[in-house]
């Protein structure tokens, strides 16, 4: 039979198919759009190798097939190779999400031998000056290019990720051309989502509608050219939901497919959920099966009986689940509310005013708050 289709609030719950292992919050870079919590420096406990191995085993037994190693920068964990072999042995498809810093050709090879399936290298821009300004590091760009090439040489698919914001969105054509030249298989053009540090820096990051429309037209035109040329390079353009009238179906529904384990073992339905005023269980205290199927944290927003109006009586609630809980919380102070991206939300004006601000924003990159331990301490919640 299938994995236990347990009942929570009359809702049948399937297995978590995706496991995200945030191995550490440590990172040599300082991206101002980092999705890590603002007070990450207060959570400096990390699970041990044995504890991570146990997390991987439990997740796989429950049905997880996709595994992400992320952070922070996962490469700072000395046991990464060991965790990769364990993941391969268990039958996961494992993805390493890295800035490329701390990577070298030998490690790329060694990880391939250990059974890593895919390495995603993230870039901040298509030219070195802008890239390095955004990443808060000088030598970052050349290193990233070298690593992107090493990844391909070692036989992995080449997946490049560019975080897009108002300071690099004009470079869309150059970015895609660079990826084409490198021979990328997948290119993610991900306009920042405003969580963590990016929410703090939203005004300085969010593109204007005019910028966005121009970029979208450029991506579509490029995609058509690739198709004509028979290229297999796939462009994935993630646009900011702040310009939508309906929210995204966040995580495909709360506690429906995704299970994130934070560096200290806190289990979360999404990597940002830590900000919510909800008690989330820790894998050092509860089995992952219990966490997934029975913990109050994971059951909190399953089903729809928690919904207030306008979602409660809305006929679209099965489609978007009322949007993102973190966004509702950040923008309205109450995570139960409809995601304000929705045109039906009484708080939709907060999105509209962010759009207006984006039309007039003038702040330069140097005015963004960079993600580092010093700035993080300013955000400690005591």
């Amino acid at each position, binding site marked *: 039979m299938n994995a236990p289709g347990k009942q929570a609030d009359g809702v049948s719950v399937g297995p978590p198919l995706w496991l995200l292992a945030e191995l550490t919050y440590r990172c040599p870079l300082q991206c101002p759009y980092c999705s890590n919590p603002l007070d990450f420096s207060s959570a400096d406990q990390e699970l041990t190798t044995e504890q991570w191995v146990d997390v991987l085993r439990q997740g796989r037994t*429950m049905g997880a*097939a*996709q595994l*992400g190693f992320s952070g922070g920068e996962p490469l700072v964990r000395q046991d990464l190779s060991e965790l990769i072999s364990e993941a391969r042995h268990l039958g996961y498809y494992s993805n390493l999400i890295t800035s490329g810093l701390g990577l070298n050709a030998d490690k790329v090879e060694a990880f391939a031998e250990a059974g890593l399936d895919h390495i995603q290298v993230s870039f901040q821009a298509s030219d070195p000056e802008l890239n390095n300004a955004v990443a808060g590091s000088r030598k970052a760009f050349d290193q990233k290019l070298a690593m992107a090439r090493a990844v391909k040489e070692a036989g992995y698919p080449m997946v490049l990720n560019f975080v897009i914001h108002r300071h690099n969105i004009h470079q869309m054509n150059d970015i895609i051309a660079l990826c084409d030249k490198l021979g990328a298989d997948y290119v993610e053009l991900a306009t920042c989502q405003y969580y963590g540090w990016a929410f703090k820096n939203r005004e300085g990051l969010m593109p204007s509608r005019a910028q966005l429309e121009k970029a979208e037209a450029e991506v579509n035109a490029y995609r058509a050219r690739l198709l004509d040329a028979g290229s297999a390079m796939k462009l994935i353009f993630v646009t900011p939901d702040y310009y939508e009238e309906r929210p995204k179906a966040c995580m495909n529904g709360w506690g429906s497919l995704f299970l994130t384990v934070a560096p200290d073992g806190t289990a979360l339905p999404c990597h940002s959920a830590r900000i919510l005023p909800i008690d989330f269980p820790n894998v050092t205290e509860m089995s992952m099966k219990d966490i997934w199927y029975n913990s109050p944290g994971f059951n909190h927003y399953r089903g729809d009986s928690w919904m207030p109006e306008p979602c409660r009586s809305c006929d679209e609630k099965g489609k978007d689940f009322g949007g993102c809980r973190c966004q509702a919380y950040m923008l309205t102070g109450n995570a139960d509310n409809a995601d304000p991206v929705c045109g039906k939300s009484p708080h939709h004006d907060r999105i509209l005013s962010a759009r207006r601000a984006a039309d007039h924003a003038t702040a330069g990159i140097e005015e963004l708050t960079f993600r580092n331990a010093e700035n993080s301490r300013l955000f400690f919640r005591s």
Partner: protein
Amino acid sequence: MAKTPKLRRGFRFQWEPAQESYVLLYPEGMVKLNGSAGAILKEVDGERSVETIVATLEQAFPDAGPLAKDVEAFLQEAANQHWIEMV
């Protein structure tokens, strides 16, 4: 034309007990395959040609009748999706 299909690099095909089906895994993605898609992709190993695959499946499913058209159509679609390459 003796073409040989092979999974594109970065793609993995495997049985998932929790989903009771074959799946195709790739960078940050997963497709759950239906019965016939699973049965066809199971034969794709980069060594056997389309004809061999058709013959194998016809032998395994004698009641299904001639399969060449369906198998070729599916493989064409999988190639269009860039899941597989024809070499």
